[in-house]
């Protein structure tokens, strides 16, 4: 810090000191600056005593009354517009997804289960204890549903049919078919071998 800066610091420190300096201890510039400083302090003290809640006090911050700034409500109301539409779009997507999931769930629950229930009712007497545990009445027998009638008509298998015979017959037919295929392929292989032998002999000039 050079001499000029040191002197500046001394002047400012003395002019703004909290302690009372006798006027003769201050140089002319410090004394004149201190007058303004004390005047400012007096105004501040009076303002503090009065509470400082006056209309004029709000202008201090900007230094100019025309620059006092307060957030207008209009700017606040403009901001949520796009966010409102965004939220509405997201909500509609959510509702659509929920409806789609609900429809799939309903189809998954009622469709296949209903079919399986129909098959079960139509074919398995164990699942119909009420009909077989008691003697069926003519009225109840006549009340069989249409799906049960369809299931019982035609070539549909009945509970208690011998499935083993059919399975055995199908298995034997399969074995016969395989044997035929092997025989045909072996025949073709034999013809091919004969042709090869004839070819070799022709090349050797034996024929």
């Amino acid at each position: 810090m050079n001499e000029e800066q040191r002197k500046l610091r001394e002047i400012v420190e003395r002019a703004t000191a909290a302690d009372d300096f006798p006027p003769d201890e201050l140089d002319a510039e410090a004394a004149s600056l201190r007058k303004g400083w004390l005047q400012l302090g007096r105004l501040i003290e009076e303002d503090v005593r009065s509470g400082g809640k006056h209309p004029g006090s709000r202008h201090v911050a900007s230094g100019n009354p025309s620059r006092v700034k307060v957030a207008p409500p209009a700017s606040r109301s403009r901001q949520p517009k796009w966010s409102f539409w965004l939220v509405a779009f997201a909500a509609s997507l959510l509702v659509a997804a929920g409806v789609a999931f609900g429809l799939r769930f309903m189809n998954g629950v009622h469709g296949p289960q209903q079919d399986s229930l129909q098959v079960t009712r139509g074919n398995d007497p164990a699942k119909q204890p009420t009909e077989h545990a008691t003697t069926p009445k003519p009225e109840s027998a006549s009340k069989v549903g249409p799906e049960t009638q369809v299931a019982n008509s035609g070539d549909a298998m009945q509970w208690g049919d011998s499935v083993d015979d059919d399975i055995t017959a199908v298995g034997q037919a399969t074995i016969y078919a395989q044997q035929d295929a092997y025989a045909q392929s072996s025949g073709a292989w034999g013809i091919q071998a004969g042709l090869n032998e004839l070819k070799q002999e022709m090349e050797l000039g034996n024929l």
Partner: protein
Amino acid sequence: MNFVCNKDDRSGVYPNAMETIMQESVDSERVAEWVREHGGAVRGYLRGIVGRQDLIDDLFQEVFFRAWQGRWRYEERGFARSYLLQIADWAACDRFRRTKSETSLGDEVWSIEEPAATAMNPAVLASNSETTNQLDAALRQLGPIQRRALLLRYFGQLSFSEIAETIGCPLNTALSHCHRGLQTLRKHFEGGEP
């Protein structure tokens, strides 16, 4: 500086629960004492910087809330006022940065939003209003940095090194701002605009 920051975190400072509770109580008393002893200075500084009463109330609470939050890092050295005034300065500057996009309402709207008090004696009210207007007129002559520097000096008796650190400028710059501000005040109170 008159205060230092303790870098230890909260868990490391107070190892057990009883000590923590006792320390909480001590800290609460200390912050309450800060409000009692230095609340007026902090409010006065904020009044000089921001001016508007609603902002002063908000910032006043914010200053002591920040002081409460930072109590773990504060070590008492007997100069709490400078610590609080620095927080007040940061809070005020931060508020101004955040409210740059605001627009003016004008005096007519203000007179509706903040009607004059009717309970006071009109003569007292006029006198107070005159004082306030004089103070506002004087402060309006100062630049923002001059105002901050002089008010920190007035309310906190901060040294010029502390003022320079708070404002964020070299010591000589802070001295120059104070000197020019004092010259401006002298000219203003002598009767003419500078």
